[in-house]
């Protein structure tokens, strides 16, 4: 490589100094401590990813992350009380609720005691120290070494949730995890969820990321293991305000004859990157990924995903919608890998963006990497303004321009929200879109 050994940026230095200073108070037994140290080393060796790293081409974290706030500490009773008052964006969704304030599970605001038979859940911090599932599975679905942001998460994760849905158990209420960034001073909040859905089981996980406009840095990892014949839905919503950084990783292992769906909705914060790694390891499964991003001002949101078909006869669908106003930047990088044994793979990926002004930038990079010969794969990307003729039609019927645009945009993003199975949750996400559009008008 022609690259000169890079000088550490301020953010890298802060992160490098952070781990030795805090490792003593991070939860976990000796095995976990070892894994943390190893993950930290792989982060330090690589540094923050930059534009010459293909996966970060359009989201150069070395340039974009100027500083790193201190690691979040356990919230005070007052902070917890304040967070309790926050309006629940998923109010009306009949869910099992878990609350994480400033990276720490608040047991008093979590339904650990209401779990039905066959469903177990632990705060991650507890599971890391004595967990029956965690030590074996943690990092298996999403290996720390594979990505520097994930490595940071593995090194610094403070708390989160471990959920296990036993064989053939159909958990009909969604598990709703509210991540509340409540502290008034910026902090680094590192959390992880591990969801194990065993053979024949069903579960829905909803992540709601909420904040009050403080420039926190969040690093969240979600690992989901779907057994054979499992049906798993995952939703992620971030409407935490305009400030801060949100780096998230979703790693999923999909067994045979599964249906896995994940939909992410983003209107916040200032800089976000959601990376998804899905591996199909069992035949005849269907993976559906989708999302909507509504961005304004100088917001930057990146969705980077890899769907890896390792076995035959699986179907994958990706549909992403981005709406960009002002000088916002959207990034979509999607890769479908079809390994040589994965014959009869059926993959379709689409990323569509609407630009509402001259200032925004959309970077669309859908890719196929196919090593099998009998497959059906396609990808597409579109980017443009709203259709003037359609706008005229709506205006000629009496809708003022902002309302005509809002109607079209809601329908545009709504197509991705259609992928959400839970009607109440879908309505909440649609409400997020409506709120964003109303704020624009």
């Amino acid at each position, binding site marked *: 490589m022609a690259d000169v050994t890079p000088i550490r940026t301020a953010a890298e230095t802060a992160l490098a100094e952070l781990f030795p200073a805090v490792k003593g108070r991070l939860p976990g037994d000796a095995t976990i401590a070892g894994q943390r140290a190893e993950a930290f080393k792989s982060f330090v060796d690589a540094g923050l990813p930059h534009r010459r790293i293909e996966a970060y081409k359009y989201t150069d974290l070395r340039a974009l992350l100027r500083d790193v706030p201190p690691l979040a500490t356990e919230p005070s009773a007052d902070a917890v009380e304040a967070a309790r008052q926050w309006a629940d964006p998923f109010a009306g969704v009949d869910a099992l609720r878990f609350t994480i304030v400033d990276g720490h599970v608040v047991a008093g605001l979590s339904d650990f005691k209401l779990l039905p038979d066959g469903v177990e859940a632990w705060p991650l911090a507890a599971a890391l120290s004595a967990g029956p599932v965690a030590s074996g599975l943690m990092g298996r679905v999403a290996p720390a070494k594979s990505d520097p942001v994930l490595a940071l998460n593995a090194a610094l994760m403070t708390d989160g949730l471990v959920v296990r849905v036993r064989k053939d158990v159909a958990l009909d209420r969604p598990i709703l995890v509210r991540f509340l960034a409540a502290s008034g001073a910026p902090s680094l909040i590192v959390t992880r969820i591990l969801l194990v859905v065993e053979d024949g089981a069903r579960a829905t996980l909803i992540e709601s990321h909420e904040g009050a406009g403080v420039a926190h840095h969040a690093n969240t990892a979600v690992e989901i293991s779907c057994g054979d014949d499992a049906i798993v839905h995952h939703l992620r919503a971030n409407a935490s305000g305009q400030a801060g950084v949100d780096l998230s990783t979703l790693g999923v292992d999909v067994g045979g004859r599964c249906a896995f769906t994940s939909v992410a909705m983003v209107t916040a914060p200032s800089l976000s990157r959601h990376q998804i790694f899905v591996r199909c390891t069992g035949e005849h499964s269907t993976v559906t990924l989708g999302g909507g991003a509504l961005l304004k001002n100088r917001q930057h949101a990146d969705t980077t995903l890899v769907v890896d078909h390792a076995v035959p006869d699986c179907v994958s669908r990706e549909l992403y919608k981005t709406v960009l106003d002002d000088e916002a930047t959207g990034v979509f990088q999607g890769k479908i890998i079809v390994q040589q044994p994965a014959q009869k793979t059926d993959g379709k990926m689409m990323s569509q963006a609407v630009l509402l002004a001259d200032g925004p930038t959309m970077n669309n990079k859908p890719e196929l990497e196919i090593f099998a010969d009998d497959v059906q794969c396609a990808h597409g990307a579109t980017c443009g303004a709203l259709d*003037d*003729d*359609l706008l*005229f*039609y*709506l*205006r*000629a*019927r*009496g*809708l*003022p*321009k902002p*309302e*005509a645009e809002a*109607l*079209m945009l*809601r*329908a*545009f993003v*709504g*197509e991705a929200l259609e992928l959400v199975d839970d009607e109440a949750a879908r309505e909440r996400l649609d409400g997020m879109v409506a709120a964003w559009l109303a704020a624009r008008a």
Partner: protein
Amino acid sequence: MLEIRNLHVQIEDKKILNGLTLTVNDGEVAAIMGPNGSGKSTLSYVIAGKEDYEVLDGEVLLDGRNLLEMDPNERAAAGVFLAFQYPLEIPGVATMSFLKAALNSQRKARGEDELSTPELMKRVRGAAERLQIPQDMLKRALNVGFSGGEKKRMEILQMALLEPKFCILDETDSGLDIDALKIVSDGVNALRGDKRSFLVITHYQRLLNYIVPDTVHVMANGRVVKSGGKELALELEANGYADYRTQAA
């Protein structure tokens, strides 16, 4: 009602309307006929307010108000309605929500109260029934996957619901089967009244047997080259446009 004087319009440096003058009185049904490309749809778009067109000269007044200074939605609220020659498909927008948004936007612009959902549903269902539009079509995305004739009927349903005072029908008859032509014409005739005028653009005399016009105007090369009564349509049906093509050139 509508007064157009010496209208000159171009699009992308191409001159399309060349000094068009036309008056439509209160309660009048005026038919416009003319060869393909003579500027009929252009005229309807200019009245409705499509932005691609550059008005070089002339006036368009609706009851004395200068339409050319108004946004398309303001014109709609003032009572202009255009039934499109090619109605557009609006993916993801349910027909019923669209109708509600349209009607309430217009009411709001006129300072009227919004219509409640039950009242709106009642009106829409009534209009749909009269136009023989199946109720389940109202749940589908507007015009998406509708047949050509269904789209045209949906235009008339919108017109019935919005109760405009100046209605432009741009080839609403094309794409309609014989029964639908009758249903749509009945729908239009039911809306005729002292305070409502129509500009009916068509290529076929047959429509004018159902919607009997008060006046017929021939358009060629971007102007009205002849005006007359309903018998003019019969004459055109028999002789074609040959005379007018040369005359206007």
